[in-house]
């Protein structure tokens, strides 16, 4: 083991890549104990009301059905911080799809057949599931997701808008969106001599352990939660989901291992969604395009179970200089499934609206949209007045324009044809905050010169093991091949959730700290004893520290679209992103994350549509045949580039998060390009052919 150390940033290949492509990497539903039982979640088939009776005889008569758990016989749970986890505790139905029973059987098929044979009687109540801009139940909450104040005002936006020579007043609408990771939410739980072991498809198994500990009244040391491999999450696995509680309940009840996989058709009701939004953006500017006022007002929905407010107006507090500003959220609690995190909550929906409005302003003024953004670069964070630790939006826009061939673009809409295609280009900015959560890690030196680093990080497909090995190796002054990385178990030093684009920064800071301390210990002299030397570190202090700087990643997206003049079908011919996200730690896996985010943004712009059924209160598109994530044929030429930043105010690696920013401006860039191609300014996503048809030649 004597490879030369590689600098951070090298395109190191994923450590578990071979296991994954050969099928030997095991996921949460693939830990097959011989006596395993299968649980099938039975969803409520009414939208509001309560269960009046559950008759289980027919279900129990299905061969191989073992048990039916309902609110009448399920274990009582202790505290569940997240009320979506309080399943089978009472008869109340807060939304269609809420679990009313778990059928447990020797085979998956028997469990499913048992679920079909279960008779549930309901008392129904009226329901209200459709968000409108003027819904009577809209109220202003205290906070939006992320702990941001719901309302922020600087100056007098109304007066400044009234006085501005040029104004834009536009409302943008999006339905719900669904995370739909390839691996559905799944858990396999077993109790052995008072110890609960769970394989859970989660973005953070330390959190899952802590949650189960409270819910089942156990000490944390009595629970092990393993998330060795996770097939995507996009935020929907960032918090524990009902299947892990149900699997643990059923395992305790039956005394056998129980596996519960959330069926694809049940996911929309049980694992969160990006809440629909109606966003009114008003911009006031002088004739040179310098902003005088920004107003961004968001209406969204939450469930009756909990308050979750998509923080879509928050990015407007970061983006552009303006002396007057109002950013506000209102929310209505409806009889709908609970919304939650979906890749870049707040930024993805909010920047769609803000960056579309900026394009409208550019069109109204006759100013190039790249130039308009450059004219409104702030010297400090507009909302807080704090200096930026680094802000290279201007460089992203300039570099992106150069790479894309933006210069000399004719701003005239609907002026380029190529056979049946109408061609257009568009641009949008992106931003995402730098977050850091406390984590712990240990670093171990063995006598043979190798190292082992332990941290409960989660690899949700991003390459966490690989980048942590690089960070550790750089701190240890060794080759990454000399470092074993142990992640994905709650028995390891506590790690934060793989979410908020904060995983690498949070775990990496702890790993760096432990590795640096280990180097110091080794430097004190003496030989490594047979049992090796282990050093641990945690970053409570670093994470609690309030930075004097505003810290955000920035980016610019450029899109070229071709709109079929006959059908209104939109194809994205080129999508190019340039990002300024601190130091890129692994160019190979980073590119994958940027591109993945951009593809998801393409879906948000063009194909992903979810319809709340007013009569039944569920999302209509409940499988991957009808909920249209982009197919390979939708993704043609896609490129991600970055600008290296040397920002000393971040963390020891100098990195910002990269998992989410790729989605942030993509939908606006595509929408702006569609407007350039066709002249049609559409303000409701997704841009499907039916919406384009009225505007075609």
């Amino acid at each position: 083991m004597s490879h030369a150390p590689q600098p951070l940033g090298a395109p190191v290949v994923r450590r578990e890549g071979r296991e994954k492509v050969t099928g030997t990497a095991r996921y949460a539903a693939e830990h097959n104990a011989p006596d395993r039982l299968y649980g099938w979640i039975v969803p409520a088939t009414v939208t509001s009301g309560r269960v009046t009776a559950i008759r289980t005889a027919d279900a129990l008569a299905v061969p191989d059905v073992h048990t039916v758990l309902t609110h009448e016989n399920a274990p009582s749970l202790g505290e569940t911080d997240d009320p979506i986890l309080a399943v089978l505790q009472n008869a109340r139905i807060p939304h269609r799809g809420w679990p009313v029973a778990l059928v447990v059987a020797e085979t998956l098929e028997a469990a499913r057949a048992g679920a079909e044979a279960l008779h549930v009687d309901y008392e129904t109540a009226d329901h209200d599931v459709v968000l409108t801009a003027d819904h009577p139940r809209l109220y202003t909450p205290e906070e939006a997701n992320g702990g941001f104040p719901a309302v922020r005002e600087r100056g007098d936006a109304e007066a400044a808008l009234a006085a501005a020579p040029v104004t834009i007043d536009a409302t943008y609408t999006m339905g719900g969106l669904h995370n739909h990771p390839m691996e559905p939410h799944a858990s396999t739980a077993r109790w052995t001599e008072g110890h609960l072991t769970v394989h859970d498809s989660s973005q953070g198994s330390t959190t899952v352990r802590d949650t189960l500990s409270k819910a089942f009244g156990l000490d944390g040391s009595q629970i092990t939660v393993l998330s060795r491999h996770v097939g995507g999450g996009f935020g929907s696995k960032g918090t524990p989901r009902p299947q892990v509680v149900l699997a643990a309940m059923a395992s305790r009840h039956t005394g056998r291992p129980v596996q519960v996989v959330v069926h694809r058709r049940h996911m929309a009701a049980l694992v969160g969604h990006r809440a629909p939004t109606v966003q009114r953006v008003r911009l006031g500017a002088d004739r040179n395009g310098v902003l005088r006022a920004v107003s961004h007002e968001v209406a969204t929905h939450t469930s009756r179970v909990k308050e979750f407010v998509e923080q879509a107006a928050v990015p407007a507090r970061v983006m552009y200089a303006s002396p007057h500003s109002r950013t506000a959220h209102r929310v209505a609690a409806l009889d709908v499934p609970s919304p939650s995190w979906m890749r870049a909550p707040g930024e993805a929906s909010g920047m769609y609206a803000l960056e579309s409005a900026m394009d409208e302003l550019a069109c109204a003024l006759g100013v190039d949209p790249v130039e308009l953004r450059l004219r409104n670069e702030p010297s400090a964070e507009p909302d807080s007045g704090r200096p930026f630790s680094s802000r290279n939006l201007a460089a992203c826009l300039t570099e992106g324009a150069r790479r894309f061939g933006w210069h000399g673009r004719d701003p005239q809409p609907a002026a380029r044809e190529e056979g049946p295609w109408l061609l257009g280009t568009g641009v949008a900015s992106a931003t995402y905050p730098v977050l850091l959560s406390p984590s712990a890690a240990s670093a171990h030196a063995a006598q043979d010169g190798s190292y082992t680093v332990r941290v409960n990080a989660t690899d949700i497909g991003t390459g966490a093991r690989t980048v942590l090995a690089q960070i550790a190796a750089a701190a240890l002054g060794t080759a990454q091949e000399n470092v074993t990385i142990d992640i994905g178990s709650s028995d390891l030093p506590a790690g934060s959730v793989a979410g908020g684009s904060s995983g690498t920064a949070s775990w990496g800071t702890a790993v760096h700290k432990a590795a640096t301390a280990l180097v110091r210990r080794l430097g004190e002299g003496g030989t490594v004893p047979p049992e090796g030397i282990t050093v641990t570190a945690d970053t409570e202090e670093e994470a609690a520290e309030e930075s004097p700087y505003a810290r955000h990643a920035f980016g610019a997206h450029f899109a070229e679209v071709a709109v079929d003049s006959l059908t209104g079908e939109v194809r994205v011919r080129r999508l190019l992103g340039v990002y300024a996200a601190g130091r890129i730690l692994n160019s190979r896996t980073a590119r994958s994350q940027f591109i993945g985010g951009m593809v998801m943004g393409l879906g948000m712009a063009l194909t992903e549509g979810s319809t709340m059924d007013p009569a039944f209160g569920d999302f209509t598109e409940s499988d991957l045949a009808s909920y249209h994530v982009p197919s390979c044929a939708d993704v043609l030429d896609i490129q991600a580039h970055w600008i290296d930043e040397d920002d000393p105010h971040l963390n020891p690696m100098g990195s910002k998060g990269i998992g989410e920013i790729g989605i942030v401006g993509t939908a606006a860039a595509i929408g702006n390009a569609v407007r350039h191609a066709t002249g049609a300014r559409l303000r409701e996503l997704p841009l499907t052919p039916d919406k384009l048809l009225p505007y075609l030649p």
Partner: protein
Amino acid sequence: MKPFAYQRPDSVAEAVRMNAERPDARFLGGGTNLVDLMKLGVESPGLLIDVSGLPLDQVTATDEGGLRIGATVRNSDLAAHRAVRDRYPVLSQALLAGASGQLRNAATTGGNLLQRTRCPYFQDTSKPCNKRTPGTGCPAREGVHRDLAVLGHSEDCVATHPSDMAVALAALDATVHLHGPEGERAVPVTELHRLPGDDPGRDTVLRPGELITEVVLPPAPGGSASLYRKARDRASYAFALASVAAVLTVRDGRVQQASLAFGGLAHRPWRARAAEDVLRGAPATEETFARAADAELAAARPLRDNGFKVTLARRLTVGALKELTARAG
């Protein structure tokens, strides 16, 4: 999924006999639709008779110069078949516009014709549906119906037939050959699928126990050109919002022969005979094509949220006919 029996017969006669003995039997082809519906509880057969191994997997020439397509020929194989690509491009294009590569590798010719609607209410057993459970009502009429029918629907059902292949076969005047307990018969593909009327549970005119054994294409009209155009929500693996299969012969600037069918608009592949009547003998101009489309689509009765399909079908028709005319050039 409820337990079921499974049999693999060696001959068509045996398959038909097995079926006749079990009213709860279903023939199984590629399983790309039936198995999904079994998992969803929409279908619950007691016996699956797997016909995919029957010797019906050949594409052969007929004496008349047409093609005989065995019912178990896979969609991928049919799309790639030399004679289909050369003489019936509309069929190859329609097949390739459907589903995904993986599904086309599994799906059979007979099974494709008999796939069931993807109406979301039909697929969800917790909701009413007249097609699935007669007399329970049709929530799609007032509910979510953007993707559903604009032509030929009834008070009881607004479902669409999802197949692309069947639309091309309708335009090509294909004939479906059936074996049943009472013997053999042939049905034009345009008459295979029904309109829903007050009996939407029946998708087709198949009699109990009848098995599709082959589909026969007549010779392609001399001098004709054909194509399939489909509009959809994403570039691949999406059902048609609307589609058109067109076969056109133009001579000296006039339409000599035209055959048109729509997909995604109705409970069956919609052969557009009113449009064909306008086209036949008329000058091959955009004006004629628009008039033809309007003649057919005058019968459309769009629902609250799917009127765009009428516009889309009109545009697809005019575009397809213009393109074919330009080729005849």
